[in-house]
């Protein structure tokens, strides 16, 4: 019954989405308030029904109802409860259901908290949301229905891919989807603006918080995914330039650009057309990401042959939405009034440079992701584009961007003084030079690139801090005044500082980890000692243990430094009987921001085991950086100016009028 109810709820949600896509638009044409208000109720009802459908699938997984194909193929009665729940989105059908649930959630939020939006804008926005939702409901119902029954139910399920039975997976996909799908809101706003043929600074004020929310989740989602790969895949890599990773990085780059261009539009009423285009592109890249990941096109174009309907269907959705929105943009963009003027050297100019570098970097990643696919289809040979390509292309562009980051927030709007800003950044520059000298001396020569990159990271952090120091007058003024000023600063200023500093922190982590990581790989017997980066790692014993749905071999290592015992590390290798596959559970020992990483390979007949030990200096900074960025985003979001659902400031109302 639960499966049928879930299925039925999903069909109802499709019906509601179809109503939501048409009726409010008619209402907007006829200036009929009642029809336009249909959008609100359908969006909320849709959320209710998709929510019910999603809960139904969760219940099926929790109760291990193997008469449902999706549960049979991805669950097992012995699986711990947590992974029964997270297993819901550990497969194609379930993750698509999560996708539409989050889409409905965002639509519902706009409906619930969009009371301060002009009625016709809200109707248009929700209607566009309805189109997207309808397309994806149809996709789920026609090609990937999670509620399909099996005629003769088996007694036991086939279990979830063991690699996915991990707490990281519990959090990573929902976060990532909140980011991906969150950009649908700015997309809908952009399409609504194009259809209505008008756009103003107030529009940017409404779009920015939604973009910011999506961006925060995407940032955390990418960081989580990277950390999951780091500790779960057992070889200590945290970024692979894999198409699946690129698929999440591209919307992040475009979304970051959008966040900044919306700022220009909000403050200075300029870059309107560009902001609209970026909104469209960001969500298009999210759709492309969904397509790349979900259609199986990534490892090979020929995967279409194995499951043609799914890939073709998503490709159709992709063409429809990207093509349609770009065509609408091409047709309508010229009718939007161009905004204010600014000098190239100004805050606006800096933000344009930011956008330029971010979008070009994004284009490079897009090229690297699609080029092998295109070559395979056109020239019929296979190749892979990996880290070396991105190191030569993406890295220099991003280095340029990072160098410009501290200048941006310190330039004045309209007309900036580059020389003055350079002088004010002198302290940051000196700090960076000192860091370069220290890093170079400490590394005793070696590659000059690493110390320079660390210097760049320090420059970004110091530059971000300088901005706050200047604005609070930390050095010049008495402490009480400084405190007062700090309290008076808008939270978005703190947000900017933290987010920018986060970039520098992540960069330092990346450079330290890649340059000075030490590796030790060998077969070890009991009482063998490995010496890695000053640590002595001794294999104490090896033993087997039975887990809920796996057997594991555990190695106990005693870690000491200079004869002083620090801790015990117990990496393990689990073999899952149902799928006949195994996973490596690495053990991590955190020392400050650095980590010692131990993972196991195969055991040999004589009771020895292959062991991989890494010492990764400053590796945690790689993820602390994004967390800092996301926290900066949250601070910005809590700024009065942007608070979601905050009472409409009187000024915004006035600004709206002339556009009418």
């Amino acid at each position, binding site marked *: 019954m639960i499966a049928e109810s879930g299925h039925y709820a999903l069909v109802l949600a499709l019906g509601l989405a179809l109503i939501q896509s048409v009726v409010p638009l008619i209402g907007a044409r006829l200036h009929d308030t009642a029809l336009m208000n249909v959008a609100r109720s359908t969006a909320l009802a849709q959320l209710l029904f998709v929510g019910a459908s999603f809960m139904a699938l969760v219940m099926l997984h929790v109760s291990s109802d193997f008469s449902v*194909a999706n549960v*049979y193929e991805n669950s*097992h009665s012995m699986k711990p409860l947590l992974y029964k729940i997270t297993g819901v989105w550990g497969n194609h059908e379930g993750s698509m259901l999560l996708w539409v649930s989050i889409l409905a959630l965002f639509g519902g939020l706009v409906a619930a908290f969009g009371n301060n939006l002009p009625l016709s804008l809200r109707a248009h926005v929700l209607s566009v949301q309805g189109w997207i939702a309808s397309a994806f409901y149809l996709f789920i119902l026609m090609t990937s229905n999670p509620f*399909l029954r*099996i*005629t*003769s*139910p*088996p*007694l*036991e399920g*086939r*279990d979830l*891919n063991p690699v996915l039975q991990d707490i990281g997976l519990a959090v990573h996909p929902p976060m990532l989807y909140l980011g991906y799908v969150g950009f649908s809101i700015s997309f809908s706003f952009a399409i609504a603006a194009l259809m209505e043929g008008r756009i103003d600074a107030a529009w940017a004020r409404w779009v920015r918080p939604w973009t910011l929310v999506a961006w925060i989740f995407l940032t955390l989602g990418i960081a989580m995914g990277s950390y999951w790969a780091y500790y779960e895949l*057992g070889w200590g890599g945290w970024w692979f330039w894999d198409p699946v990773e690129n698929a999440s990085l591209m919307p992040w780059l475009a979304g970051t650009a959008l966040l900044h261009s919306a700022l220009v539009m909000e403050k200075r009423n300029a870059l309107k057309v560009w902001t609209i285009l970026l909104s469209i592109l960001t969500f298009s890249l999210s759709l492309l990401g969904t397509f790349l990941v979900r259609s*199986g096109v990534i*490892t*090979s174009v*020929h995967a279409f042959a194995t499951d043609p309907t799914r890939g073709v269907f998503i490709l159709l959705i992709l063409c429809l939405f990207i093509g349609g929105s770009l065509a609408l943009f091409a047709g309508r963009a010229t009718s939007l009034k161009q905004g204010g*003027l600014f*000098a*190239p050297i100004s805050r606006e*100019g800096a933000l*344009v*440079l930011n956008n*330029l*570098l971010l979008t*070009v*970097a994004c*284009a*490079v990643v897009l*090229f690297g992701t699609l080029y092998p696919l295109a070559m395979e289809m056109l020239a019929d*040979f*296979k*190749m*892979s*584009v*990996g880290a*070396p*390509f991105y190191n*030569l*292309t993406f890295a*220099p*562009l991003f280095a340029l961007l990072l160098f410009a980051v501290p200048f941006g927030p310190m330039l004045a709007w309209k007309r900036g003084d580059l020389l003055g800003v350079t002088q004010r950044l002198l302290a940051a520059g000196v700090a960076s030079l000192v860091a370069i000298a220290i890093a170079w001396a400490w590394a005793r020569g070696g590659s000059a690139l690493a110390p320079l990159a660390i210097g760049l990271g320090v420059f970004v952090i110091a530059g971000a801090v300088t901005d706050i120091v200047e604005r609070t007058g930390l050095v010049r003024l008495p402490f009480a005044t400084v405190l007062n000023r700090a309290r008076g600063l808008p939270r978005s200023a703190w947000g900017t500082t933290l987010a920018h500093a986060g970039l520098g922190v992540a960069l330092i982590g990346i450079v330290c980890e890649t340059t000075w990581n030490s590796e030790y*790989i*060998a*077969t070890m017997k009991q009482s063998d000692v490995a010496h890695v980066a000053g640590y002595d790692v001794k294999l104490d014993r090896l033993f087997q243990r039975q887990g809920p749905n796996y057997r594991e071999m555990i190695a106990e290592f005693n870690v000491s430094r200079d004869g002083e015992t620090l801790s015990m590390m117990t990496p393990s*290798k689990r073999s899952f*009987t*149902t*799928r*006949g*596959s*195994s*996973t490596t559970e690495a053990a991590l020992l955190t020392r400050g921001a650095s980590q010692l990483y131990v993972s196991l*390979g*195969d055991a*040999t007949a004589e009771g020895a085991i*292959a062991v*991989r030990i890494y010492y990764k200096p400053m590796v945690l900074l790689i993820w602390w950086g994004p967390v800092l960025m996301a926290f900066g985003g949250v601070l910005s979001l809590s700024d009065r100016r942007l608070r979601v659902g905050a009472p409409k400031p009187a000024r915004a109302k006035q600004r709206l009028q002339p556009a009418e």
Partner: protein
Amino acid sequence: MTRKQRRMTIIGGSLAVLALAAALVLNALRDSIVFFSTPTMVAEKHVEPGKRFRLGGLVQPGSLQRGDNLAVTFEVADGNAKLPVAYKGILPDLFREGQGVVAEGALDSNGVFKADTVLAKHDETYMPKDVADALKKQGHWKDDYDAKASEAKASDAKASGGSKPAATAAQGNPQGAVR
């Protein structure tokens, strides 16, 4: 600055960044791209030693030999040709004899493929798609693979069905019913 000059500055700046990116990409394309080959393709094309590429195929059953200190050698085959591979390190969890593998590295002067990475990026049927496609194209392996897959599924079902043989039979069906 006039409006026109301002616009020209922005357009000029954009073009400069685009040109920079294009130059970087073209430069990177020259030597950072790695091609994919099967043992047959290697035999036909006479790949020169030292040129990096990705080798894909099936691990020849019985060819895996472990040496001292994690050195391993095995052969990668695709039905027509075989290529010896040497690797030093820990093989991925999903590495099995008779199953698909992708290794990255280069040939040495003796015609041995020195791999520095062995990839374990498989789908649940333990077959990297690149390998499956290459083998399919040669028309060698499709049936073979299907047989293997159903075999694997059967053993899967056996493992999960536990002591009830009746359940194994029941589990064979749903696959057909659903797909």
